[in-house]
């Protein structure tokens, strides 16, 4: 599904070139569940963002389902992104002014889905996540774990084939974290969603089928 070849990422600060990623070669197949680990500043998030097409590599090639991502035009790439990728963040990034229901509905708006279908889809997922009773609450009225549930519900409502999670449990306590990890495992096993997560926690990393360790922008261990 994903093939990264000789991926480099750097930023220029003045005359210096600071490398964030160095010569990353990585292949992830459909249905995989990968955990990326590594210390702060090792380039985990950047790698995730590059896979998620939110960021672009400075050098190297990226094939997504055999399509050369960097050969695509901006519009086509957004389309590819919209159809395949869901994001989950450490800080949830819910929209404060919207209710739980509206937050989950938002991506559907951008997928041009009809109102009646949207209602059904949001109702389904609320049900699936057991948060039907919370649908009219605002993010600030929820606990961290509940917010992250909403964040995940929002990420998967468009049925992405690839779910990217940047330290999804970083702001949660361990029992909330476990709940989220169980959910990820279920999504991976039952729906076949490919999942790539960045995490600091060995325990959470263990939920993945394989672990990639990054150090100073290089892959240390697969």
């Amino acid at each position, binding site marked *: 599904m994903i093939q990264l070849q000789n991926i480099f990422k750097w930023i220029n600060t003045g005359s210096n070139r600071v490398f964030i990623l160095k010569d990353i070669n990585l292949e992830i197949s459909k249905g995989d569940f990968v955990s990326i680990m590594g210390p702060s500043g090792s380039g985990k998030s950047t790698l995730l*963002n590059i896979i998620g097409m*939110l*960021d672009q590599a400075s050098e190297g090639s990226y094939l997504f389902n055999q399509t050369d991502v960097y050969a695509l035009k901006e519009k086509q790439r*957004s389309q590819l*992104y*919209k159809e395949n990728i869901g*994001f989950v*963040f*450490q*800080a949830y*990034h*819910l*929209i*404060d*002014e919207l209710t739980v229901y509206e937050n989950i509905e*938002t*991506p559907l*708006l*951008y*997928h041009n889905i009809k109102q009646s279908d949207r209602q059904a889809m949001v109702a389904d997922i609320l049900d699936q996540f057991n948060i039907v009773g919370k649908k009219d609450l605002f993010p*600030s009225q929820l606990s961290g774990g509940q917010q992250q549930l909403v964040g995940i519900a*929002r990420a998967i409502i*468009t049925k992405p084939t690839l779910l990217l999670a940047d330290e999804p449990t970083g702001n949660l306590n361990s029992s909330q974290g476990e709940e989220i990890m169980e959910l990820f495992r279920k999504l991976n096993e039952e729906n076949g969603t490919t999942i790539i997560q960045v995490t600091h926690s060995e325990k959470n990393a263990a939920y993945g089928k394989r672990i990639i360790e990054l150090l100073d922008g290089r892959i240390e261990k697969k």
Partner: protein
Amino acid sequence: MFKIAYRNLIKQKRTLLINLSGLSVGMTVSLLIMVWVINELNYDNYHTKSDQIYRVTNHIEVSPGETWVWESSPLPYTSLMSKQVPEINKVTKMMTGTWVPLIFEHKGSLLKEANIAYVDSNWFSMFSYTLLSGSLSVFSENPYGLVLTESKAKKYFGAEEAIGKILKMDSLYYTVNAVVADNPSNSSFKFDILSNMAGLMKNEARKKNDESWGNFNYISFIRLHENSNQKLVEKKITEILRKNKDDNTIRSTLVGLKDMHFETGLQYYTFSHTNQQIVTVFLVIAVLILLTASINYVNLSTARASIRAKEISIRKINGASNKNLFLQLMLESGLVSFAALVITVLLMNLSLPYFNQFTENNFTISLSDWPVTALVLGTLTLTTLLNGVYPAMILTSFKPLQVLRGSSLPTIKDSVFRKALVVTQFTISVSLIAATIIAYLQMQHIQHTDSKYQKDQILKVTVPWYVTKGKTNEEISSFTQTIQQTLMQVPGVKRTSQASGSIIDHQSTSSGSFDWNGRAKDFNPSISVLSADEIFPQMFGLEMKEGRWLKDRNQADQHSYVLNETAIKELGIHKPYIGQRFSWGGDTGAIIGIVKDFHFRSMHEKITPLMVHGQSNWRSTIFMQLTPGNIPDQLSSIENKWKVLFPKIPFDYSFLDQDFNKLYKSDQQMATLMFFFAIITIIVAALGLFGLAAFTAERKIKEIGIRKVLGASSTHIVQLISKEFILLVGVGILIATPLSWWAMSEWLNNYAYRINIQIWIFLLAGFSATAIALLTISIQAIKAAMENPVKNLRSE
């Protein structure tokens, strides 16, 4: 503290720039307007005891339901009232010479002077003038004395001493006895040459004529003793007038000197005169512009408040008291206001010459004038308070820990207030745009409504009345013919015509001396009277509805009359119209023709009854129709002929289309000013919107990031940011529409021929405001939409 305030301001360059430019442009424009308004509201208050000075107004009932209101009185009136009414402390009278400008001869050159008045010896003891040189008492003693204003003296004599110099007027020699300072801009009296009335009285014929109680040629001013009863004096002087004129319906009233400037209802205004409505309109506009500019400042400062919440919270946690913070914020506001003041003063000085030129005034603005200082300081204090207090209140009321935890941002709480302000700004902008469009359309309507006569390539010159003074009718006729023949010799002059006045704005009206078959005894309507020659209808393309025009050589036509359609209708002339008896001034003749209605006055007025007669001794206006071609050459040839005909009269011509435009000059001025103000207002409002949109984009930066990650396109993001503002602009449009509809309907009521206000005007105004707002916002919105969301979603 000062350093921190400075640093805070500089950090937000964009906000600072918007605040400064908005505030200083707004202040400059509204101050300029205010200077004008203050001047208008303070007319003639500089004279000593101006509260006690009044002008006599006479109400002459010409027929039931029609009263003429005149500012002039009979000559003997003042001296008689001064003797018989003990409340009167002093009287003085003046007259403005003739309808035609007077001509002065100096060092061989001829100069027309329009702003000249004859005053009696009390004039200078009632009204305050600043004497620069010479002596006013010498002037009072000298029947042929002159008082010149400083600039007039300079015009004639340059740097030379003016006192004792001789000027020739008509055939008389006048001596300059005194030079006074120029009339202040708030003076009703715009005369720059004052001549002694005693000289006028040397002319026995004139004196005899003017001393009759039937002739109202002199404007009388009286000064009452303190605490006199105005009503009682009016009653007393009315009695004097009624007794002497032997007329029981005539009535005199007094108008206060300071109220004269906004006087209404007079048939003719000698003194500088303004419609009070216009002053009110401009006062409102000044306030609105200042409001718009101040709103920007408040909006941006409060918007910034949430961004500064963190800084303020940390300061609080570190022990800053509310007072400290308040002072800090007020200092920042004060600094901006001060900087705005400096820019305002600069801008004022730069724009004043243009403003003066446009308003035809001579304002000087210096900070040492108390009204200007009061205005500037008042505005400044107000804006500083407005702009400082509210943001300071919001900011200092934060609960610091909550802010740091990021749970409560004050933006939601004050956003209703801010929205209301934006709505206000756009209500103002849209109203002004709509008003401008309506004013423009009305101007177009007036200028393109068919005046029913043609006025292109027609030149007008006026022959002073005294040229034909003392001549018999036959002599005048032959002289008239000589003029005609001489002018026709000039190549390029297609035809010439003579009449008693210009077709553009013919004011001469009479009442009471007309009679016709079927007239009710007490029906004495006023009828405009015009004397015109045979060529007149050809030259102006007038059409006859019935009958024929007057013939010059036909002796019988000396007693024939042509009426316009309105006259036939309003006078109730019996059929058949042609041949009906019609008499005027005791001379009975017949109606020989009906001319189709044409607009012989401005479109402010409806067409009134008009009677045209053929008596040639009335005609002092010469029209010349030129063939298209070399106008300057034609003009100089005409001037050469003119010099032969009238060696003592300067060739002072005007083109009719220019005269026509002059009729609407004040309307045009108003429309131009409105347009200018509308532009300024919308720029200032857009500036504020720009700042707010930038702020919204900044505040929503996270949300935008999230939405982009969720698949939102740039279009979605632009919509997201614009939606809220466009909604506010929409509300502004909704409020502005009925408001400006109402206001402009009132304004249009001044016109006899007016446009109908149509809905598309408001659609256009709304559309342009929306377009400008959208353009402004989208600059920010697109910038926000293009940004990489990853940058804004980092949580560390």
